[in-house]
């Protein structure tokens, strides 16, 4: 996804990447980054929590419009309101994805 942001940015359209892995987005050289400590699939926050989603979106807009240089990263200061162990399990698919299944089988 950071690479996709780079290609779109290179075509002249400013981008910001809102991601739960901002360190990876930095390594992949995304132009503007907002880091969120949220489980996968939840870039803007908890379902139906419009206040949390709005804080995330407004930070993304500020970074998009106000970052002065390439590689700007700002992290959102919100703690996920679910215990880590539960949230860690909740985001994962019920069945392992095909690539994970392949990896698990190769270890047997």
């Amino acid at each position: 996804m950071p690479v996709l942001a780079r290609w779109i940015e290179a075509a002249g359209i400013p981008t910001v990447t809102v991601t739960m892995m901002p360190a990876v987005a930095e390594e992949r050289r995304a132009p503007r980054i907002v880091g969120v400590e949220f489980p996968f699939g939840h870039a803007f926050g908890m379902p139906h929590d419009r206040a949390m989603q709005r804080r995330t979106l407004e930070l993304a807009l500020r970074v998009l419009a106000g970052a002065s240089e390439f590689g700007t990263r700002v992290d959102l200061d919100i703690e996920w309101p679910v215990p880590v162990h539960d949230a860690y399990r909740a985001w994962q698919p019920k069945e392992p994805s095909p690539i994970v299944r392949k990896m698990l089988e190769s270890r047997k």
Partner: protein
Amino acid sequence: MVVDSYKFLPRSFRPFYEGRGPFPGEDEPVWAPFEKRLAESRLAVLTSAGMYLRQSQPAFDLEHEQTHPDWGDPTWRAIPASAGAADIGIAHLHINDEDLLADPEIALPMHLLHQLTRDGVIGSTVADHLAVMGFQDRRLADWRHKTAPELVNHLRDQSADGLILAPA
């Protein structure tokens, strides 16, 4: 506060992401200045959660991925800003889709963006936002040569001044 990028990632997946550096050939800075005021700008959002319109669009191709685990559907979908949760399907084998189906705004906040238009924070939104399926072949050849140029054309057609990308 500095986000822990690996807080929710299974430990065995971490080496696939951490310390791998830039994508080959993608280490130079790229920069398009954001020149307008937000209140005069038109914004678009893109999700990689594999969203599609149940009634009128094909789902992302998960059957092929089941038999070719290294491959992910590289196509994209235009999601109308007016679409509601009931209109949206999710095709993504790498995440639990329950929360996304209950409230697609957590990945593609189209209605919230529209609310920001009414509140005068931004000028407007595009008519059609964007969805891809984030699990891709590692070389990203289809995304580079076909999907990305099509997304750029779509954003230009819709006069987007900026794009918010949200990996799933």
